[in-house]
């Protein structure tokens, strides 16, 4: 660095920043969080490998929650609208976020989808992320919880190989457990792996095909719903006058 010698070199100064590089995304996620809060909706960021069974779990959830909970979803999809079509057919109000070549959703994409979403009265809003065990974990979307699907055909070691994703998870759904009798899958081994990467390891075993474990998953979701829209444990679908779902939400 050349300071005052007069040689004509420009002065180089250090500018301290000390901020997260993704602070813009963090701010947008906080904004989304206030939307979800204002709507009294539980927002879930559903992540996992391609084909881990994210959409199938949501289809099964809709079957089990029919008449009790109003479900909504946005699906991050590289090119198609297949997942949103499947979810709409299953009774979940859904739209697609086309990501093009992006390997993850970010808070801005979710915000845009939120403002174009056809319904404002959902109880639970699922954000089905792009199938990928790495990138989506880095971006806060404004969700209340991260749920990671891990299918039994992927192997017990995935939590150790992809620690970032599992470390950020509030819950792991071990999916396709109906296939376990046909595989050498060791449930205890995956539990051990999770305990080494996830401080409060919690896993539920589910099968979208047989419906096994879907009630426990619904229970997990119900326990996390925002207090102001809490209903009796058995749940019911009609409108309460004190709900503020119908009000237009604030935005700035």
């Amino acid at each position, binding site marked *: 660095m050349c300071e005052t010698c007069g040689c004509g070199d420009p002065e180089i100064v250090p500018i301290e920043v000390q901020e997260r590089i993704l602070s*813009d995304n963090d701010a947008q996620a906080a904004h989304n969080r206030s939307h979800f809060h204002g709507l009294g909706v539980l927002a879930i960021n559903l992540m996992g490998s391609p084909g881990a069974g994210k959409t199938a779990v949501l289809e099964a959830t809709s079957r089990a929650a029919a008449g009790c909970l109003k479900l909504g979803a946005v699906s991050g999809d590289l090119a198609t609208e297949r997942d949103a079509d499947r979810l709409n057919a299953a009774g979940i109000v859904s739209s697609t976020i086309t990501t093009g070549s992006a390997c993850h959703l970010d808070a801005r994409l979710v915000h845009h989808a939120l403002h174009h979403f056809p319904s404002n009265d959902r109880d639970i809003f699922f954000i089905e992320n792009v199938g990928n065990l790495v990138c989506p974990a880095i971006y806060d979307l404004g969700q209340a919880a991260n749920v990671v699907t891990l299918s039994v055909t992927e192997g017990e070691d995935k939590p150790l190989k992809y620690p970032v994703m599992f470390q950020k998870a509030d819950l792991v759904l071990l999916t396709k457990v109906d296939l376990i009798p046909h595989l050498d899958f060791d449930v205890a081994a995956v539990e051990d792996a999770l305990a080494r990467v996830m401080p409060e390891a919690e896993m539920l075993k589910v099968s979208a095909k047989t419906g096994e474990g879907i009630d426990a998953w619904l229970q997990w979701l119900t326990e996390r719903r925002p207090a102001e829209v809490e209903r009796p444990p058995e749940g019911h679908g009609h409108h309460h006058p004190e709900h503020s779902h119908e009000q237009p939400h604030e935005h700035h």
Partner: protein
Amino acid sequence: MHEYSIVASLIDRVQHEATVHGGSRVHRLHVKIGELSGVEVDLLKTAFDTFRERTICAGAELAIDTVSPAWACPSCDRSLAAGAILRCDDCGRPARMVQGDEIILERIEMEAPDV
């Protein structure tokens, strides 16, 4: 590859600081990347080398400080070995990450008359 989108955010941020401080050429960026941040340092370098041209960061160096992960018990502060079960043997409490997930822009070295 999310490293490209991270580099895009990084360059935007540097451009913003340069505007604020009347900076012109950027010589070096110091970033801190945790080994459990999900960001691959090699991919980040490649993405930076590709994207910096024709931006305020053209010709700038990216200095990366990597941070290894560390976990500790929130009650007794006992640290846990890498790869261990993330629960304190003594207190039974879930461990807390002390470091290792950083994705931080620490400092920019630039030519700036207004500082």
